[in-house]
């Protein structure tokens, strides 16, 4: 009888732990995702700068998919976003700004750091972790 009570208590604990949203999923929805949505427009500028004109189709597809995920406010749609193609284009965009003497190499390092954190953030939202 005592064991059954113990089992019941454990089951309730499991339900309680996840009924409010398991902590990891909650942090993704309420902390990281709003941040990604806020930062994306500035990272997007670097992506578009590096992609050139016209933007190659594979890059445009990932841009559109990320925009769509934000428009739908659904971070689970990020599975379709190729973060590698976005970060490569953004890195080229940052390099281009240095070459054009718009920013210093030190400022470029700040933009690259933001890009690294943005890429890591997309990975965390996909649940793949690092």
């Amino acid at each position, binding site marked *: 009888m005592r064991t059954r009570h113990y089992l019941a208590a454990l089951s309730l604990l*499991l339900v309680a732990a996840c009924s409010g949203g398991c*902590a990891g999923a909650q*942090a*993704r929805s309420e902390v990281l995702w709003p*941040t990604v949505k806020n930062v994306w427009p500035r990272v997007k500028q670097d992506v578009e700068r590096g992609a050139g004109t016209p933007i190659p189709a594979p890059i445009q597809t990932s841009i559109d998919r990320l925009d769509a995920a934000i428009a739908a406010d659904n971070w689970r749609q990020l599975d379709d976003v190729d973060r590698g193609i976005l970060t490569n284009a953004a890195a080229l965009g940052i390099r281009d700004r240095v070459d054009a003497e718009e920013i*210093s190499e030190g*400022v470029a390092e700040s933009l690259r*750091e933001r890009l690294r954190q943005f890429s890591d953030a997309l990975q965390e939202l996909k649940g793949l972790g690092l």
Partner: protein
Amino acid sequence: MNVAEDFKELLDDFVQETGRGLQAGTAELAAYAAGRSAHLSTLVGDPGFAVALRAERDAVALKAGITAVRQGDAADQRIVGLIHGGLSFAAKALATA
């Protein structure tokens, strides 16, 4: 120009923009923010300094979010681990009862 104060002001602005507080409780995150602020201090007067200020703010905010997710995932794993262990123990007790 006080870079540290400007940086903090931007972080506070971010909280207002997103309506979300930054999970800045970990020592790792505090060290990261201090490092980024120190880097910013070296850029005063550089072309594009305002761009760097905003980029560093974004980087710290993202790092805070990533930290929150990893802490949440770790907490979930601990809870699941505890429950799994407890259920295994209880199942054995029932089997031998």
